[in-house]
């Protein structure tokens, strides 16, 4: 946590480009504890890269990211900032969990083991304790009858709910959701969103949600960011941003989205 504020994550002047394509352009963003931030914007606007730099899947070109009071990509040595090594990254990224668009469950493990593997081997929990809490989480996402199933036997919506339980089992302070319903058949979107609604209200953690589900964004977001070409174009409370967007770019995007 920041000393003065209760921010759990802060981006300071973070930039990232892939070749000529700028995906993060001097990004500044603070996330408060327990805050639910929804990020919307056109494809290729860099929304996902915000999450990926925070999960340490992409390295920013410049700027700093602070997680729970610690630099993520830097470590302080004698008052100087040096690039983080893998050990430092592991320490800081322990506060962050992520759910991916394409689930990425471990296909060689059953559902229960998908959820217990990291708590046992990364957090050092006993098998008994890890299975106990995994059963609770899987019960919460409505999959208590699928503990022994393998990912290949599950529907997309079920896979994604397992993936959510797997990330929750690590007790993150910040959860990242990267277009988690985009790969699902339309009739399976609802079951995943209803689990996420529950997380948004009942869990003590911040959520950063990249999504195209505008109704959901309005419902669970404490704050909505409209992101385009690597920059936050506009941000605000959901009702303000959706009903009364100030910037032309936001208006164009929302009217294009709401037309279909």
């Amino acid at each position: 946590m920041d000393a003065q504020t209760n921010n759990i994550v802060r981006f300071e002047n973070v930039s990232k480009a892939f070749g000529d394509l700028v995906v993060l352009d001097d990004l500044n963003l603070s996330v408060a504890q327990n805050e639910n931030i929804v990020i919307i914007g056109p494809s290729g606007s860099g929304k996902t890269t915000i999450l990926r730099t925070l999960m340490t899947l992409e390295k920013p070109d410049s700027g700093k990211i602070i997680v729970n009071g610690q630099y993520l990509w830097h470590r302080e040595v004698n008052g100087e900032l040096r690039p983080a090594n893998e050990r430092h990254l592991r320490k800081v990224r322990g506060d962050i969990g992520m759910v991916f668009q394409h689930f990425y469950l471990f296909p060689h493990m059953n559902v229960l083991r998908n959820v217990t593997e990291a708590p046992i081997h990364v957090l050092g929990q006993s098998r008994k304790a890890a299975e106990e809490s995994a059963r609770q989480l899987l019960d919460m996402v409505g999959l208590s009858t699928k503990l022994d199933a393998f990912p290949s036997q599950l529907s997309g919506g079920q896979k994604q709910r397992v993936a959510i339980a797997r990330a929750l089992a690590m007790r993150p302070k910040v959860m990242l959701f990267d277009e988690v319903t985009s790969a699902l058949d339309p009739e399976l979107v609802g079951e995943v969103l209803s689990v996420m609604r529950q997380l948004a209200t009942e869990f003590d953690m911040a959520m950063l949600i990249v999504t195209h589900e505008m109704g959901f964004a309005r419902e669970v977001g404490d704050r909505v960011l409209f992101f385009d070409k690597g920059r936050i174009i506009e941000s605000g409370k959901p009702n303000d941003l959706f009903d009364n967007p100030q910037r032309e770019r936001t208006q164009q995007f929302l009217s294009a989205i709401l037309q279909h």
Partner: protein
Amino acid sequence: MEQSALFDWNFALEILPQLLEGLWVTIQATFFGFIISMAIGLFFALARRSENLLISAPIGAIVEFIKSTPLLVQLFIFFYILPRYGFRVPAFQLGVFAIGLHFSTYTSEVYRAGINAVPRGQWEAARALNFTAFQKWTRIILPQALPPMIPALGNYLIAMFKETAQLSAITVVELMLSARIIGTSEFRFVEPITLAGILYFAVSYPSSLFIQQLENRFGRAN
């Protein structure tokens, strides 16, 4: 001079035990050689993936060199040249190591293909769940990469079984050299060489049928 039959069955039966002894040496050489090739091959595959060029470049050069020179040359280097520098190891052990090293360049390619076939998302999920590098390999990546490799590795096992005949060039008395020894001492080559061929076939053909079964089960790695 006595007119000999084209194929003397009594003679064949007489030399069979000696050839079976040779076959046993061949099987042992294949077994140990294969274990060595799997271990060194894994090391080569992982080292070539290293982001550190000081590791990946020299290992890559060594692998390409071994793969691009005949096994026989390597056997002679180990057998005739290394002892000059005080490196004395019995012929069997040398041969097993040399053939294992030679085939490790092929198994490393199988590993490489198998590892590359694991989707990128699996690496990202492993990172997001904060596994250590070692846990990532042993718990997430290799358990997915290895089963599809089994048929390809099995085919190299059979290839290696046949290639052990080359160990005869460095005095390892395996099946081929056993047959040649009988041939030169009895002045009859038809029976020992024919039998040796039959024995090679008797082991490798059922093995390749078995590998085909595995391919049906696990699919192909390449």
